[in-house]
């Protein structure tokens, strides 16, 4: 791989990972806000409306950063991956264009009504704005997942006489089984993230003994939704996704598991370090037979190792793929455990008295972000060396006229700009958390008094 392709990959990886930190929260949070607004419609649901009002402010900041960091994602298909766009544009252009038309317009039209419209709209009207944001952001998620699913497992296409892909069957492309599975897995993961964030803040306020009533409302929704979603992320959605990988990308599964040799009764490696040069897993700790079961359903099923495939078709960064997959799966398991324990304590009415558990909940919120990032790294590194699986190699997909130095320049530009945005983002979110729920005017009396400057 030459430098330019490497830098194009690094830039895309950096900008997409950074971008996705925000939609990852806002998609899950839009669901929770929708639920809060629905509960707020009932008689006496005012505390749910108050909670929604606070989370809409957090949502607004996250959504704004998600919107602006999403702009380069759309462009980079063409700027950095020109040969991919030319090869697959007939097909993936469909979903990318549909995302703009069906999802982005919907979201943008209702965003300001959700964030600033509570007084202008009726109760039902504001609930409707929350529903529109929920629908728009989840629709957007589907179109982009379907685009990615085509790259993972192409369906509905034909290779034309002109050497590029043509759309042969729109429904097969749009309802790619891979897209459906990946969407279910991914969207449940966004709900996990949002639940952990809502729960963490509730735990924080309880530990601080501030905004205690709001904190209880946060835990009331965050704990059960967090438990259900973190279980669903593993089973059935994650399990189903793993079986698809086993069937359609066996070489990726072998690399994810650090499995260099084929055989029956494949064990699941829980710990170990892939040693690609020696073609073995160093210091492995495995659960016997479990990989065979997870991949195909029976312990004696054969699971192919990397030795079954030509090295040219191996994912090109086996170590990173292996670690990413294990971090995702490991953190996913830990998150289920945390939620189980917290729900158990809450059910027995002992959560608020168990301060160490509150501390754990408060500190756990970064882990869903890490797990989601690692999960996407697993998907994208596992797809290598292909950009469209089995059809177009990544080395043949970049823009031919963009030099390595230019790509490095723009990558560094993004690093700088996004560092700045991170600082501002954290400052604003910390301010909102400091103000807490019930603080209606974010920056009361604007320029009139010097006391407003505090964070």
């Amino acid at each position: 791989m030459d430098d330019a392709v490497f830098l194009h990959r690094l830039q895309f990886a950096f900008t997409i990972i950074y971008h996705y930190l925000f939609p990852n929260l806002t998609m899950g949070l839009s669901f929770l806000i929708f639920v809060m607004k629905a509960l707020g419609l009932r008689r006496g649901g005012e505390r749910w409306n108050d909670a929604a009002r606070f989370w809409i402010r957090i949502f607004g900041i996250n959504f704004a950063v998600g919107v602006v960091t999403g702009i380069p994602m759309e462009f980079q298909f063409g700027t950095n991956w020109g040969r991919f766009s030319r090869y697959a544009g007939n097909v993936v252009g469909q979903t990318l264009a549909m995302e703009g038309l069906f999802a982005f317009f919907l979201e943008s039209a209702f965003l300001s009504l959700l964030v600033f419209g509570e007084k202008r709209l009726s109760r039902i009207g504001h609930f409707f704005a929350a529903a529109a944001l929920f629908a728009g952001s989840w629709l957007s998620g589907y179109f982009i997942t379907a685009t990615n699913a085509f790259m993972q497992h192409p369906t509905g296409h034909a290779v034309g006489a002109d050497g590029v892909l043509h759309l042969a069957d729109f429904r097969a492309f749009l309802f790619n089984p891979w897209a459906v599975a990946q969407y279910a897995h991914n969207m449940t993961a966004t709900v996990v993230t949002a639940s952990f964030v809502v729960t963490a803040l509730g735990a924080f306020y309880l530990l601080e003994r501030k905004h205690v009533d709001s904190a209880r409302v946060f835990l009331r929704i965050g704990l059960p939704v967090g438990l259900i979603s973190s279980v669903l992320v593993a089973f059935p959605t994650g399990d189903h996704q793993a079986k698809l990988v086993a069937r359609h990308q066996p070489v990726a599964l072998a690399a994810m598991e650090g499995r260099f040799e084929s055989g029956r009764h494949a064990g699941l490696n829980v710990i170990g370090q892939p040693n690609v040069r020696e073609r073995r897993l160093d210091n492995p700790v495995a659960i016997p037979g479990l990989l065979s079961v997870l991949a195909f359903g029976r312990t004696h099923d054969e699971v192919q190792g990397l030795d079954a495939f030509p090295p040219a078709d191996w994912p090109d960064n086996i170590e990173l793929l292996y670690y990413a997959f294990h971090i995702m799966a490991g953190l996913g398991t830990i998150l289920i455990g945390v939620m189980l324990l917290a729900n158990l304590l809450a059910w027995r009415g002992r959560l608020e008295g168990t301060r160490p558990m509150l501390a754990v909940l408060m500190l756990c919120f970064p882990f869903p972000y890490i797990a989601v990032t690692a999960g996407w790294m697993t998907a994208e590194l596992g797809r290598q060396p292909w950009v469209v699986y089995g059809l177009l190699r990544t080395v043949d997909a970049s823009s031919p006229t963009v030099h390595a130095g230019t790509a490095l320049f723009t990558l560094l530009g993004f690093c700088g700009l996004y560092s700045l945005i991170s600082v501002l983002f954290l400052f604003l979110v910390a301010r909102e958390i400091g103000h807490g729920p019930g603080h209606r005017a974010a920056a009361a009396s604007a320029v009139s008094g010097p006391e407003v400057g505090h964070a």
Partner: protein
Amino acid sequence: MPEIWYAIAVVMLTAYVVLDGFDFGAGALHLFVARDDRERRVILGAIGPFWDGNEVWLLAAGGAIFVGFPRVLSAGISGFYFAIFLVIWCLILRGISIEFRSHVGNPVWRRTWDFFFWVPSVLLPVFFGAALGNLLRGVPLDRDGWFSLALFTDFSAREPVGILDWYTILVGIFAAAALTAHGGAYLTWKTEGVVRERSRRAALRLFGAVVLLWPLVTVATSRVQPEFLSSLASRPVAWIFAAGAAGGLVLAFASLRSGRDRSAFLGSCAFVGGLSLATAACVFPVMLRAIGDPSHSMTAANSAADPAGLSTALRWFSFGFPLAILYFVVLFRLHRGKVAAAPEGEGY
């Protein structure tokens, strides 16, 4: 079918220029027509509910070009790589300026964001104008349909060309003047009192500059690209759009003078939109003009996506496009009337 998608792409881009154009213009003017925090919040309140949706037209237009003409999209934006990222960074900076400003009341915070809102609001119209200039002048497409352009060379508009030369900069300045005037007309319509009066005067002056620049740019275009005027002469539809633009300009002028604010903005929309449509009608069917060997040019016919893909896309497009229009109608109706500064915490 490729002709239909050419038209769709042009309509989407025109909608983008008309809509995001007014909030670019508002951003370019706000430092001058709004002098204190309350006045600036009026400006942000006037564009706040719309700017994000307006920008979606750019992404949607890009999507339409992608689905209709993948070859054009891939060659076009990889060839302008450097300039595209300048545009992206400006769009990011502008977006966070609008969205972050209202969260903190500190005057230094707010004035800082006012400045970072202003800079890209001036630069982006220049960039988009220069991009149009590049499309009219032509780019060095090779036989495989790729090109790469330096940001500038010797500014001569002759080979070897750069993205910026005297001609593309002239188009950029013209675009900036036109869109800033357009933003002035919008602010005149949506605000009242002293902000409206300043916006109205600024719009009148800028439209005056536009009247001077328009013939100059047209003459320059015919020198750089002689085909442009000959196709203008032979295409009545281009004349109709150009006449619509001129009529819009007259209407904007007259209405700004007589205080009919809404028709001034509508006239301004007709001017900006008519200009965009007339230009597209003149260059049709060329999408990316090759400088040097005209056989390398990408046209609607030789670079369209496959027919099955185009007709599939037309089906969902004819369902989704009216939806997008509907959202905007609802949004403009919900936010009709003159804008006052929102109370702190309840608006921009």
